[in-house]
């Protein structure tokens, strides 16, 4: 049986081709738009408009990458290539999710490099770094954290929906499978959103009542940072909870697709 590290590594390399493809297309996109900018020769600072354009493309690529990795993550639950690996379902689940996260981090690092390389003209903005106050650092950190946790939460959430639909459809007749799968997706999505928002509403009520007692005099920045930290913690708990449910469904009811490809 493969170790967890080996399994995660193999699943990482299996998905890293998708990262390279997205980044490759992205680089072509950036170069083309910079060339277009030079041709159209618009007024204003060239370096600023390059910064704006690259930032825009990076954001778009980040969105695309997020979706591509979600799809690649979901393939693992229903394909022989992954499900026949001789490990427990919990181990496969963790390794798969971790490999997705690592790929996104790797993608993020590539984005930083791209931004730095294509925006050498804008490096002077770094001088403003030293003007950042400790409280701003705090906000930056907690913003990053909540971004990471939210991203992860969505991947886990997609898995939950996918796994529930897979499990249910194995008990339903194959007739009109496409149609009822779509209906199932809508219904399950709606129900799960309702449940989650109900629970989160309760939690937020409790948390905010606690904080309104103690934090009224704290300064706005750190309140924002702290509340984002709290939200991150809350989402981390949700991630762990949903993951337990996901592994359970995966193990109990989700089989691989019988069609050979």
């Amino acid at each position: 049986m493969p170790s967890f590290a080996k399994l995660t590594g193999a699943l990482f390399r299996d998905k890293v081709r998708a990262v390279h493809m997205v980044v490759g297309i992205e680089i072509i996109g950036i170069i083309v738009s910079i060339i277009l900018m030079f041709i159209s020769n618009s007024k204003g600072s060239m370096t600023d408009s390059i910064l704006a354009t690259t930032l825009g493309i990076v954001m778009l690529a980040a969105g695309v990458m997020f979706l591509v990795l979600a799809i690649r993550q979901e393939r693992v639950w229903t394909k022989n290539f992954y499900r026949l690996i001789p490990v427990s379902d919990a181990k496969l689940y963790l390794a798969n999710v971790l490999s997705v996260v690592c790929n996104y981090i790797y993608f993020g690092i590539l984005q930083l490099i791209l931004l730095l390389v294509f925006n050498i003209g804008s490096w002077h903005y770094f001088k403003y770094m030293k003007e950042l106050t400790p409280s701003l650092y705090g906000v930056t950190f907690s913003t990053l954290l909540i971004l990471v946790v939210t991203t992860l939460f969505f991947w886990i959430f997609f898995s939950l929906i996918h796994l529930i639909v897979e499990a249910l459809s194995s008990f339903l007749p194959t007739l009109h499978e496409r149609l009822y799968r779509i209906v199932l997706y809508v219904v399950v999505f709606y129900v799960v959103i309702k449940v989650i928002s109900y629970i989160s509403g309760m939690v937020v009520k409790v948390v905010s009542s606690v904080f309104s007692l103690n934090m009224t005099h704290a300064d706005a920045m750190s309140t924002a940072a702290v509340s984002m930290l709290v939200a991150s913690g809350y989402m981390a708990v949700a991630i762990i909870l949903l993951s337990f449910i996901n592994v359970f469904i995966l193990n109990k009811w989700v089989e691989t697709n019988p069609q050979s490809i």
Partner: protein
Amino acid sequence: MDNLLVINQLTYKRNMRVLLDDVSLSIPAGSIIGLLGDNGAGKTTLMRLISGAATNYSGSIIIDGEVDKPTMKGLVSFSEQLNGAATDAKLEDLAKFYDTIYPEFSMDNFNQLVSNFNLNLKQKLSQLSKGMRRNFVISVTLARRVKLYLLDEPFDGIDSMKRKKIIENILAWMPDDASVIISDHHVTDIANLLDQVVIIKNRTIVNQIDADKIREEYNQSIEEYYESFYKEVNDHA
């Protein structure tokens, strides 16, 4: 001979249909078994259950005395195990994946098999013709040194010269104590290979018999036996 695979009262339902109905079967170690049956009789389903790809069954499957699912997966090499592999992957990427994940995967054997089939490891999975893909699948499947090989219609869409090559490689590379279950509807291709024949019909196993017993006691070829059996049962039905 010890039994490598023991199946007891296996029943499997999916999508509100019974796909296998009360199957019991014992397969001895070190043997080659022909799993014969019409399309839709349940050959692929039975292999999916043995491989661990489908799990929602009642009854029991024991492989080499093991009932733990991950352990069992490590004992079986199924010819459908590459389903869902990324088609933009090069063959060498997939081989490396196997080498990392499966401790019993032999890169040496794999390289020899691949050169026997004249496959180019720099090619992507999506670039292979149907026949080349079959050969690649067989190479990966046989490069794992396991107890039980499940080959589901390995010659489908392969011309007869290449079929012979696949058969030679199966014979050359299967470990001594391993067993092979081959499903096929061209019985004649594999008739010479078989120790036993298992006939599956209407989602259950209707007969298991030694290949030489068919020839010695019934004076029939395996194909005749298999077909007459199907016909006979049809007539009674």
